[in-house]
């Protein structure tokens, strides 16, 4: 299946190569570089490339390309999912997935890759199984190991590998037993010039941090499970229970994991927390323009909107911006032509406003398209869809765990278009 993996940094250096079958020369990456040169954005490099003898399947994560080489038929999504899993594992082990950190932990990375695939087919991808085989870096242990000559490699088969709950290791012990759940929702919305919603949906995720002793069997139930529409679950969730009772029943992995992700796409359910009044004009003559933006609260369920930020990609001809903001600061990056207005907390009594003039390149024609606004915001303690956890029950263990749920709403791809019709 997966023949080789090359890790390539932003400037096109291959800084790690791993082969699971016979060695493939790194010159195979030249095809990839050719395409990468042409692409404006690294994201625009097609994920699957065909070369005379190989197929190159790549992902772009953390400013790195994970490029895999395959020779025969394999579902492309299989490889892409796997590469993401590799990146996730690095993130999990080293706290981040970047060139520096991979280079610093080259041997651990190599050992991980060796364990994750055998002959190109995934062998162990569960984080807790891997962590028992290859221990993550940790100061204390590395001191001890240097002194005693001990190793970071486990010598017995992790119990998870054999059980039917491979995501959990046996014999977990904690003095403080706790289970926390974060319900995080992102609003994806496109509004048109007049402020009407063209498209809106909520992407939700339930992140969990579970530190419980033994083999707990948890059941998480919601006040309003019917809201949830299209879900995907961590393998630990019992599908049948969800289908019949609409509760999440699972034996949790140890530590942090994503329990489920969901969509709420029916339009009337998606509340838009702020409204934006905007007026951007470019004048035919005098090579200048005017900008006037006001933001106010809309449907925020009585919670405060925080971390408000507006980003505008200006047309190339806009040279500078001379604006005044009643709240927060703005910056205009001349090279990337991005205007960022960082507002902070939204005060409903005094609405933030940004206005002023834009100066354009002399003689250049007026831009055809008005730029669109990207809005970023945060609302603590609120899941905008109204989803609420009603209770968490634990079976199989006797102690009383400490439980907690947090809610957070964020703007995902919140776009306000300045449409004008043909």
């Amino acid at each position, binding site marked *: 299946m997966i023949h080789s993996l090359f890790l390539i940094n932003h400037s096109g250096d291959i800084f790690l190569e791993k082969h699971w079958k016979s060695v493939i020369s790194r010159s195979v990456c030249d095809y990839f570089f050719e395409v990468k040169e042409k692409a404006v954005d690294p994201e625009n490099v097609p994920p699957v490339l065909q070369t005379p003898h190989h197929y190159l399947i790549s992902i772009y994560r953390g400013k790195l390309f994970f490029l895999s080489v395959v020779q025969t038929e394999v579902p492309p999504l299989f490889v892409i999912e796997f590469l993401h899993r590799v990146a996730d594992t690095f993130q999990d082990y080293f706290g981040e997935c970047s060139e520096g950190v991979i280079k*610093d932990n080259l041997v651990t990375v190599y050992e991980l890759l060796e364990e994750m695939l055998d002959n190109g087919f995934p062998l162990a991808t569960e984080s807790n199984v891997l962590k028992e085989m290859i221990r993550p870096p940790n100061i204390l242990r590395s001191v001890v190991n240097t002194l005693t*000559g001990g190793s970071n490699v486990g010598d017995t*088969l992790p119990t998870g590998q054999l059980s039917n709950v491979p995501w959990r290791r046996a014999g977990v012990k904690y003095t403080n037993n706790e289970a926390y759940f974060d319900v995080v929702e992102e609003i994806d919305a496109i509004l048109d010039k007049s402020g009407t919603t063209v498209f809106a*949906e909520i992407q939700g995720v339930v992140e969990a941090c579970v530190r419980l002793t033994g083999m707990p069997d948890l059941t998480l139930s919601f006040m309003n499970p019917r809201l949830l529409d299209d879900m*995907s679950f961590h393998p630990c969730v019992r599908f049948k229970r969800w289908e019949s009772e609409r509760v999440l029943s699972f034996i949790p992995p140890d530590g942090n994991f994503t329990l489920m992700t969901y969509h709420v796409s029916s339009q009337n359910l998606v509340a838009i927390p702020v409204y934006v009044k905007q007026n951007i004009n470019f004048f035919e003559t005098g090579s200048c323009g005017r900008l006037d933006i006001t933001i106010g609260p809309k449907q925020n369920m009585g919670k405060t909107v925080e971390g408000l930020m507006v980003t505008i990609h200006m047309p190339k001809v806009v040279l500078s911006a001379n604006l005044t903001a009643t709240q927060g600061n703005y910056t205009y990056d001349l090279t990337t032509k991005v205007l960022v207005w960082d507002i902070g907390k939204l005060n409903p009594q005094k609405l933030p406003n940004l206005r002023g003039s834009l100066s354009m390149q002399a003689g250049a*024609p007026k831009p055809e398209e008005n730029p669109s606004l990207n809005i970023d915001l945060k609302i603590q303690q609120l899941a905008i869809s109204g989803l609420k956890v009603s209770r968490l029950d634990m079976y199989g263990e006797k102690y009383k765990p400490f439980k907690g749920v947090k809610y957070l709403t964020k703007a995902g791809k919140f776009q306000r278009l300045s449409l004008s019709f043909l």
Partner: protein
Amino acid sequence: MSASSAFNDEKGGSSSVGEPEYGHDPASGGIFSSDYKRHDDLKEMLDSNKDSLKLEAMKRIVAMIARGKNASDLFPAVVKNVACKNIEVKKLVYVYLVRYAEEQQDLALLSISTFQRGLKDPNQLIRASALRVLSSIRVTIIVPIMMLAIKEAASDMSPYVRKTAAHAIPKLYSLDPEQKDQLIEVIEKLLADKTTLVAGSVVMAFEEVCPERIDLIHKNYRKLCNLLIDVEEWGQVVIINMLTRYARTQFLNPNINEGGGGEKTFYGSDEDEDEDEEEKEKKPYVMDPDHRLLLRNTKPLLQSRNAAVVMAVAQLYFHLAPKAEVGVIAKALQSSVLEPGMFEPYLKSFYIRSTDPTQIKVLKLEVLTNLANETNISTILREFQTYIKSMDKDFVAATIQAIGRCATNIGEVRDTCLNGLVQLLSNRDELVVAESVVVIKKLLQMQPEKHSDIIKHMAKLTDNIQVPMARASILWLIGEYCEHVPKIAPDVLRKMAKSFTNEEDIVKLQIINLAAKLYLTNSKQTKLLTQYVLNLAKYDQNYDIRDRARFIRQLIVPTEKSGALSKYAKKLFLALKPAPVLESPFKDRDHFQLGSLSHLLNAKAGGYQELPDWPEAAPDPSVRNVEVKESVRAVGTVTYRDTGALWGPQKMEGSEGCSFPRASDSASGSESGSGSEESGSGSESEESEEGSESEEEEEEEEEKDKKKKKKELKKPTIAPSSVLKNYELLHRITGEGLSVEYCFSRQPFSPDANMVAVQMQFTNSATSDTKNLHMEDVKLQSGMRVKEFPEIGEREPEDIQCTAMAVMGIDFCDSTQAANFQLCTHTRKFFVSIQPPVGELMRPIFLTENEFKKEQGQLMGMNEITEKLTLDAKCRNEHAIVQRVTTAANLSRVPCGSDKECRFAGRTVTSSSLVLVTVATKEEGAAQLTVNCEKMVIGTMLVKDILLALTQ
């Protein structure tokens, strides 16, 4: 963050020494010598006695490999350390070996014996990694060794080792394809494996080695379907894809009866269809229950977090499900191009954001275009209009093409689209204009007479547009419809003649075409111009253009030499041309399996397996029937024992007697052994075993039989009538001649009522003595307890040559966690573990019907688990159900008034929690299984086990 950076400081050596070396250019001579020196110090470190130094050296070497630097000259020094005790050094040596063995075959052979030893290690991880490395060394000489190792590992007791064996199969196959037949045997064996761990890997091996041997799947089909949900995600993808192909060969097309739809209309005349219809009336389509099983068991996986799994299920439904059911995949799958109607409600999910990468934009555009119909076209067009303003030019071009396709597909909006596109002609961006011209050209061909003003407008554009393709398109359009623009056409030709020499080749060709067409229709005005153009073309650099000019001159300009053809010149040039079909770039890939690499690239990738057409008539479905096996896993050396249990000792003696005297002994031993265990009561059991043990040897067959009968009579009524399953504790090979098997005797363990009795049987087939058999170093999960069996003492050499029995008690604390311990003889220690199936963690109790109902009433809600199932064809009568349930779990039958229900009751051994099982049967093998148990985990596991027992 801080932790990881500090760690690197600690680790120091590897990165700080490794780093500068990376920067050097290996080609330059000076560096080369210092390189050489440094390798010398690595060699020194590898030769030292200290593991820490070796580890340091290996880390540096592996770092070199990771960066793609050559470290092959260290091979001899590294290989020496293959037997190093330090597990991390060992692993790194393995990494090195696999990388360079191919280049240094002779030296690599030195390491083989270490791996052969590793294959027999008591630690399953070491056995597995030895096999992994051995099979990864691509050296042809060791093929026979690899073959042997794989065969051995395929019957290993550890499922992890068996999984590794499955992985090794394709490795060996790629090294030596001639081994195929033998490997297929191993695959067949592993396919029968019942653990989820092995399933995905062996199917992968099957796909790589012998995808054409679909017959191997029959017997395992239902098992694979049932295991699927518990297989790890990667295995799921592979299995689902394989089962899709399997189903296409074994089941009938579920859409066969859909009138009009389906492939039926494509072939065959009307007559044929009539015949078909008659046939249909005779035989209404009934879905094979196995086909249904596959669809049902894959559906929950649509909610997997792994997109590859979701895609695999989606393609399965797309290729296999009845039309009415395909809809379920739409929600889970919003990124693929399938049948239109299905995705219509999700139209807006495909609206494009400026932040999407280009390829996603183009795909979404494709989806939107396919979804367009009369009702939603106006919304979609409005959406397209915003896209045209995007900064991403490739995307704009794709959008314009999409508008063109909407216009061709939906007649009502053709004019609107055309007008919109014409407006785009005044766009400032040349690319947009060019693309529009090309699309307009295609659209105009459909109704040229109505749009002469557009043609005129386009003629004007020739002054400004520079993109060759667009210029060529305009010229072609004018030439083709010159009759509609009689005044403008000659003028355009005049301008073109002027700029002819500076044009691109494709424009030049179109100028020649235009000239020729005008010459034929309007020779008065254009004769000279045409001559001029043709003369220019005659001396063009491009031979294509020269040829074209020569050819056209001969054809249109009448000379005395010109042949008969010139009479037809007009017909040739001004023939009515069919309007082009605007096609999706994604057309024509339907014949590939959805979601495959081949489908994506629209080209057959190596190793792609064609998805077969549905068969005309369904092959025999009975091939998938499986008889119930007694052993827990169908593989392995214990198969012999299974048959022994079924056929009795006499038969075995005849067939196996000469070659395996020990084995037959052990078989009879197990029979009588388990018997004596039943009769003996707890505390004396060990004595009675010893007794029966020593007697055994000299005993005659008859006596044995008698004894057996006697014991059978003595069986307590409550004990299940089913045969006890034997599990392997220590394999003959790993135990160096000593093999140990155990079974859960289902008898109360008298020293401690909270313990499960485990009966062990030792067989020594080695030539040397085995003494002092006892247990040591028991490792248990908290709460678990073990009552060890008494040491089996010294014996005379003859005695050792046979079997011995012992009983131990384990308190599993009502969990299926394994009890690990060492089994010691006077010379060796073996690591073994006993893991109970959940059904053995309980003991049967008597309940009346009323008691049962009362207890059940108190165990509702969370404590009740209900599953629907389809009973196996051989398990549809009461007797069979009772037998299978009691085999799977140590429960007793509860009397019941209804003959549609079977009830069973028991208590868990440790906590005495009630376990109630109800199997309610319905028509046609449908049934419902209900388990009520206070302990939810036990309940869930029990449901799974009983379900498996009843459906297979």
